[in-house]
């Protein structure tokens, strides 16, 4: 059956309705999730995939979760389960079959029409508080391989039939995942989200007709591809290269890992290619990238440097080619190498290398370097709550920043990292203190840590916290100390990361970048996150903006003068003449 083409208004309205379904799913996951990583930090994503496994809509999702991956996962579901039926649901978290990393346990539900035909796949991915690793963390940077990592893996394993749980699978999870009651609550939240998405999409398909919905998808992909074509045509033609370096971590070479990205823009064809094949082989570490993360991180670097109005779906993706190599740390990792921390560390380096490369196209292109993760202020805390006797494990989100400057704006501060794009929520002090036995002594942005520039990167954050009663374990892996976020086109670097322990007697000792630390009552951890890089020369920055930053305590008077060339008078107002002189000196 053929249907007539939709006009521009119909296309817009249907797109709104499809995105509305995705938003409703996301709202369900946020409101009903039990672990903080879901109900406070919003570390989950929802999307709709076409029957032929292309990403259609992913409103307000975390970029690293969805651009590439859900499509591959839907393909493996269809391949492993050729006879999909209404009421089915599948667990999927295998990084060797399209998932980002093992902690991102996803549920896929095929949407089956009244004639039994598979029309779309509803998808929800939720970062777990725990996935059964050998250590209580979901980012196990030290994992030598998947066996050492220890995560439970589900390569598209059926978990519901006829809308009912397959209890065997649930029991397996309850035996191997820490704090199983919390896990079960999160499972219910995710099932609720996909079932709501299924219900709404079935209603939409029946209302307007499935063929018309397919027609919409086809036209929406074409529209998105056209938008992408126009955006790429704004770039200069040519080849550029960018590099971003990860700090030395256990299991990595002693000098760390420099990721190299070659970007080739062909504006006359409206196409762009990112080549990541030059990078080193997989390492005995949890930092290797899954195929989904390599591909997605490269795409994020590209999209961060293009007109943001281009819809992110399979239509736009037709114009990006990402060249990956098998057995490469920033390529396609093969079993049994571990991808435990694939969504963050090396992914950050890939996204950054691409956007730094794009900045080489000239002023007005690319972005500065976004900071790195995961400082202890966003680590995984676990233990037994001395106040109640109950076990707990949770990733906390007390503070982060890391946002980088763009050619047209100061940074969005609370970015977390490139792959997150700032979508994560912050817990706030009270929520973290009530759900974990924590005492947060202070939480602040740190003066003089912004990436200086015409447009500034985010300042670092510093949090001082510890157990309020009893002890806690905190696991983290903090990149960005040796390699703080770089500025571009004359912009300065953002603040680096660091961490210390303050003993009960007040003495302060440094902590390693990757650790699992036991804190006793009275001890505090001091966690400093990275800032983000600046864009353009600081001497080009609007002097009034510098004066405001000084007044609000983000920048010291001294830094205003030495780095920005802005001289302030006794009242904190810009001394125009002195500033002009100082800036002329700096340019000389």
């Amino acid at each position, binding site marked *: 059956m053929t249907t007539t083409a939709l006009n521009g*208004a119909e296309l817009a309205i249907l797109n*709104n*309705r499809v*995105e*509305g379904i995705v938003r409703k799913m996301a709202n*369900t996951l*946020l*409101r*009903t999730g*039990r672990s*903080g990583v879901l*109900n406070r*930090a919003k570390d989950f994503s929802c999307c709709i995939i076409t029957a032929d496994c292309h990403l259609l809509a992913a409103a*307000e999702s*975390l*970029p690293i979760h969805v651009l590439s991956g859900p499509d591959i996962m839907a393909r493996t579901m269809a391949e492993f389960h050729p006879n999909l039926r209404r009421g089915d649901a599948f667990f999927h978290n295998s990084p060797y079959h399209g998932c980002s990393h093992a902690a991102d346990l996803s549920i896929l539900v095929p949407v089956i029409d009244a004639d039994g035909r598979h029309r779309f796949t509803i998808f929800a991915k939720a970062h777990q508080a725990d996935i059964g690793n050998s250590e209580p963390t979901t980012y196990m940077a030290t994992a030598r391989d998947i066996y050492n990592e220890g995560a439970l893996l589900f390569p598209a394993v059926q978990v519901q039939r006829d809308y009912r749980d397959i209890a065997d699978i649930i029991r397996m999870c309850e035996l191997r995942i820490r704090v199983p*009651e919390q896990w*079960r*609550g999160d499972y*219910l*939240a995710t*099932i*609720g989200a996909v*079932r*709501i998405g299924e*219900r709404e999409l079935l209603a939409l398909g029946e209302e307007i007709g499935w063929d018309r919905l397919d027609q919409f998808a086809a036209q929406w992909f074409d529209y998105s591809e056209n938008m992408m074509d126009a955006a790429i045509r704004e770039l200069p033609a040519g080849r550029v290269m960018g590099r971003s370096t990860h700090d030395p971590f256990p299991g990595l070479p002693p000098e760390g890992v420099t990721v190299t990205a070659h970007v080739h823009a062909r504006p006359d064809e409206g196409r762009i290619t990112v080549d990541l094949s030059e990078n080193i082989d997989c390492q005995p570490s949890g930092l290797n990238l899954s195929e989904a993360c390599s591909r997605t991180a490269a795409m994020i670097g590209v999209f961060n440097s293009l007109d*943001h109005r281009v819809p*992110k779906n399979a239509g736009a993706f037709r114009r990006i080619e990402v060249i990956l190599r098998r057995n490469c740390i920033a390529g396609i990792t093969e079993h049994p190498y571990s991808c435990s921390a694939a969504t963050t560390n090396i992914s950050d380096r890939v996204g950054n290398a691409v956007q730094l490369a794009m900045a080489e196209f000239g002023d007005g292109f690319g972005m500065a370097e976004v900071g790195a993760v995961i400082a202890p202020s966003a680590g995984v805390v676990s233990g037994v709550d001395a*106040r109640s006797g109950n076990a707990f494990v949770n990733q906390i989100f007390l503070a982060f920043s890391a*946002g980088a400057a*763009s050619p*047209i*704006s*100061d*940074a*969005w501060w*609370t970015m977390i990292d490139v792959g*997150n*794009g*700032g*979508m*994560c*929520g*912050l817990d*706030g002090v*009270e*929520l973290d*203190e*009530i759900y974990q036995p924590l*005492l947060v*002594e*202070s*939480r*602040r*942005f740190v003066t003089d840590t912004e990436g200086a520039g015409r447009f500034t990167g*985010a300042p670092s954050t510093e949090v*001082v916290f510890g157990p*309020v009663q009893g002890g806690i374990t905190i696991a983290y892996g903090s990149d960005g100390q040796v390699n703080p976020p770089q500025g571009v086109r004359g912009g300065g670097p953002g603040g680096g990361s660091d961490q210390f322990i303050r003993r009960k007697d007040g003495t302060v000792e440094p902590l390693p970048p990757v650790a699992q630390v036991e804190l006793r009552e009275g001890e505090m951890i001091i966690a400093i996150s990275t800032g983000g890089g600046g864009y353009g020369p600081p001497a080009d920055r609007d002097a009034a903006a510098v004066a405001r930053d000084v*007044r*609000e305590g983000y920048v010291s008077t001294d830094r205003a003068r030495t780095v920005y060339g802005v001289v302030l008078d006794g009242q904190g107002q810009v001394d125009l003449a002195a500033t002009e002189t100082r800036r002329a000196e700096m340019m000389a």
Partner: protein
Amino acid sequence: MRLASDTGGTFTDLVVEEDDGRITMYKSPTVPDDPVLGVLRALELAAEDRGLSLQELMARADTFIHGTTHAINAIITGNVARTALLVTKGHRDILVFREGGRVEPFNQSIPFPRPYIPRDLTYEIPERILSTGAIHRDLDEAAVIGVLQSLKEQQVEAVAVCLLWATINPAHELRVGELIAEHLPGVPYTLAHDVNPTLREFRRASSAAIDASLKPLMGHYLSGLTDRIRGEGFTGDIMLLTSSGGMVDAAEVARSPIKVINSGPSMAPISGHYYARAEAQADDVIVADTGGTTYDISLVRKGVVPITRELWIGRPLLGHLVGYPSVEVKSVGAGGGSIAHVDQGGLLRVGPQSAGAKPGPVCYRQGGTKPTVTDASVALGHIDPDFFLGGRIKLDRPAAIEAIRKQVAEPLGMSVDEASWQIIALATEGMVQAIADITVAQGIDPANAVLIGGGGAAGLNSTFIARRLGCKSLVIPETGAALSAAGAMMSPLISEYATSIFVSSDRFDREALAAAIERLRAKCEDFASRSPAASGAPRISFVAEARYEGQVWDIDVKFDPQKILGPDGSEIFRAGFDDMHEQIFAVRDPGSAVEIIGIRATLRADIRRDVEFRLHSPGALSGDHRPREIYFHGYGRLQTPVLRLEAIAPGRPGQGPAIIESAFTTIVVDPDARFHRSGTGSIVIHP
């Protein structure tokens, strides 16, 4: 006699209800630098109409209800008080961090938002309370006094206080409040635990900051309003409309001005719902209120007006979180005053700049030189320049045409008629998109909803809006030109009280629950006894904020206080919660305990008797006007009948083209639309 006034950006509306139920309506231009004067002028119109002096009119009235955008305007224009924020030591950046989150992850053109109170006016107070309410560090009063001294030097005009865990143990916040009263006498302050008793310090701090910053100006505004109304001999109740669709005593608002942020717009869905129901139309209603400067959209979903606890001023996650419950209203900067111009690239733009009340559209002859949407309507012949507001204001049509010719038609290379139509079409499109956004967010299909066209200018393009949205019908109510003021007349007295509590279905503490319910009931009854305006018996309803253990977001579950305290109270409540959770979120979890973390009590007392709400028309009508030549896109200029709204017989079907005029509004029915006047006086249009 009751009076309801609503001060909008351009006009101040007044609805008067006589003791016999007769309704009359008046409109007078808003006076931006003295909004109360605009109200008094509208009251003078009502007095004149009755052959009374203003004093005589005011002496007859027993209730004066007022809606105002004064608070929100002050925030948007940055004219609030210089406000300081006091927080727990170590936590100066509560308002800077916010709660993270972002709307467009790939949009690198938007910098991180600035906090509502700048960092240099945020001070740390040495003290610390724990999540249990235990005091970890005593309040350092000497340090507080030191901070208050610097506030004096900084010439701070208001103070907000937000200390960690004050919701559990308010001792330190209360003491800081006492110290402010002692050391900064006359400087208003807000304690966060008092204004928004919620877990999550960012939300409390934001509520307190906004509330405190409004106190000097709203206190001044309200005492001015009260004095001047009283000065005219009024002795009755002065009530203000709240964001959540009720009304409270003016003195209550001075204590907590955050309650009236959406005062006025919150009433539109109340009258919109009344009229949609009167026409026996759909359960889903889109209520659009066209003002001179903003286009406000609200909804009724399955008979219920959606309330949000996450009202943002500005865009979500980018603006400022209010944290006080509000009727969900989406405002876009579009209206009759929106200015049309052609940009450097040759593209026609309409708004967001507005000519506002001053100087207003070109045709008002008050100094406006830039053509607006209203000028386009005048140029097309939609608005009769001699019969605007019943002929009280004469419009200058040649000036409107000239401005459109020079600034729009010639740059675009088209006729004045076509340029004027394009201005209307572009303004219409912006309004359609705004409606599409809010209906999607609320899961309403416009095709199954009725559109209510409110505001004096609604009739000019609502037919086109309804057609674009696919609505089957558009209702323009008799009182549509003053939709909020009419809603205020219909609205009950509402007051809401909340308390924090922790009761789990595992350990169901009946005594704690009974005590909390009693506390709230007493507050409601006290309020009712202080509010003589309430006529009917007050009704108190209870809602529990509840969740499964481990969740952090709660849902509202209504409960019957007798049943919940009865022998099976825990089971009955739990079953209601499980059902509600499944209905909203598709799953239930009988294995987890259910926790009640707060209860709210709402008192409602009817003020108006349940009688028909009909506009009183004077006996002698001037009858229909002469037909006019009017431009319609796709048809050109057509000789169009001009009907007098009040003279149209109910039920008789009509076919466009037609212009329907009253003293308050002009309704344009294009050649493709059908219309009739309903039994309740509304004009119903099938686009």
